[in-house]
């Protein structure tokens, strides 16, 4: 396929994406609008119309929800996610790299990581609340627990995947062990680490929602959950959409960082 054809094909796919999205929106409008008689097909209690959800969004922006502004709810959610994510990257990635470099370290750390890996982390939340209380710590810890095995194991595997010839070339150029790690193994592992960072964003957001559904009085998922108690479907949907946008934006951000930092990823030379 020529480059022109490829461009045309990707333009076409883009149009179809857009049309598909517009179709979904139209479907939402149709089933929530009073088209036949005075009643819409789906009652607003179950699914309000896009226009009324938008109105609710503006209202929340102006008045906030339960004594906190919408930004405060978003902020507290982002804070929990950001601290947990940052701590995990700072601890799990170096540890995983170390495991990849050193068999003894791997032998020591493998069992705890492998035992906790398949455990559904949300099941630990009741225990974590007893240990760390219902404050921020238990929520942050549960996200860390979920992301830790993913990031440490993938960093370890990334080290194992570094081309043997690159390491041999560095040795034959007289590089010390420290230099081989710093300038060969670490950068060569970065593409693999970035892939797992992107995977863990989705999982981290999921854990955040799970944690906020249980014991808290702030956060976007909390807002949606408590609104559900009062059958405020509009607020619930605003909350869901905000979380979707957050997840999507974080992924875009990670992808932008990835193409900037590991521009060589997947290319051989």
């Amino acid at each position, binding site marked *: 396929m020529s480059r022109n054809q490829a461009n045309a094909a990707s333009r076409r796919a883009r149009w179809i994406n857009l049309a598909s999205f517009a179709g979904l929106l139209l479907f939402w409008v149709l089933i929530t609008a009073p088209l036949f008689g005075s009643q819409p097909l789906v009652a607003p209690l179950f699914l309000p119309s896009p226009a009324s959800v938008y109105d609710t969004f503006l209202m929340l922006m102006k008045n906030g929800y339960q004594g906190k502004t919408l930004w405060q709810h978003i902020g507290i959610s982002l804070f929990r996610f950001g601290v947990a994510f940052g701590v995990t990257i700072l601890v799990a990635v170096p540890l995983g790299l170390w495991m990849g470099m050193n068999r003894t370290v791997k032998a020591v750390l493998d069992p705890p990581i492998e035992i906790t890996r398949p455990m559904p982390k949300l099941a630990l939340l009741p225990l974590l609340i007893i240990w760390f209380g219902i404050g921020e710590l238990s929520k942050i810890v549960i996200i860390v627990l979920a992301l830790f095995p993913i990031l440490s194991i993938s960093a370890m595997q990334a080290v194992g995947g570094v*081309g043997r*010839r*690159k390491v*041999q*070339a*560095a*040795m*034959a*150029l*007289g*590089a*010390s062990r420290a*230099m081989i790690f710093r*300038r*060969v193994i670490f*950068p*060569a592992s*970065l593409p693999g680490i970035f892939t797992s960072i992107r995977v863990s964003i989705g999982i981290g957001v999921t854990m955040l929602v799970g944690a906020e559904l249980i014991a808290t009085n702030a956060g976007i998922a909390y807002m949606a959950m408590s609104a559900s108690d009062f059958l405020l479907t509009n607020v619930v949907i605003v909350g869901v959409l905000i979380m979707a946008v957050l997840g999507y934006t974080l992924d875009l951000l990670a992808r932008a960082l990835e193409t900037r930092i*590991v*521009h*060589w990823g997947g*290319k*051989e*030379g």
Partner: protein
Amino acid sequence: MEQDLAGRQQAKQAAQAAPAAQAAGVKARFEEVSKRFGSGSDAVQALQPISLDIAENAFVCLVGPSGCGKTTLLNILAGFETATTGRVLMDGRPVEGPDARRGVVFQQGALFTWMNVLDNVAFGPIATGKSPSQARAIASQFLDVVGLASFARRYPYELSGGMQQRVGIARALANDPEILLMDEPFAALDAQTRELLQEEIKRIWQNTRKTVLWITHSIEEALFLATDVVVMSARPGRIKATFRPQFAHSEDPAVVASADFMRMKAEIFGLLRGEALAAQRQEEAQ
């Protein structure tokens, strides 16, 4: 630049004339080196005990069928692998692991993809203690030698296969190693690129007289470049014959069409054909 290199090389030779207790002018020596991979009934004898001297300033080509242990031999001299029996000496001292005195060029996939071309070539000088600015200056010189000065800021994945190999050669040369070990450096290139690079390597060798151990599948390449052609047998590898062609000293690319060249090529071809068939049978038997 190249004269400069040649000068340095002569100075080194003079300096090394003193400890001539070892065989005069032997840069590297394999003494009864054998290699066995694995153990028990799964063990594979890759190399029969091999003895081989690589003279100072020689360009030694190893040719042999696939799987005959050529690369293993090179890896042992590089220090990447250890011999099962026997030992490898360089300047009379046993090789203990890789070091900067032996530069290695691989077939492909050994460049540091995350560094630009200049930083790739500057890696060795930095590793051996030069300051970053000195290292970059050296790297620019050697990029010039391989004709890639204008590509210093590019990344390896932006270059063609032939250019990538030239970066690999410049990177090895930049450390001013005492011997260059080249493991089929041109095997993955197309025929035209390969021929041009062979001429380039020949020019660099004629100017620097750097000792080279070169592995290749191509009899023509070996005859065109080498002062010594070592023909190896099918696995377990041993030395079947050695040739001393004179074409390495010729500056005429058309030397490959001469009668002498053709005759020697036919002779080596005859030797290798039987070994290649044996290697094929080994592969089929597995």
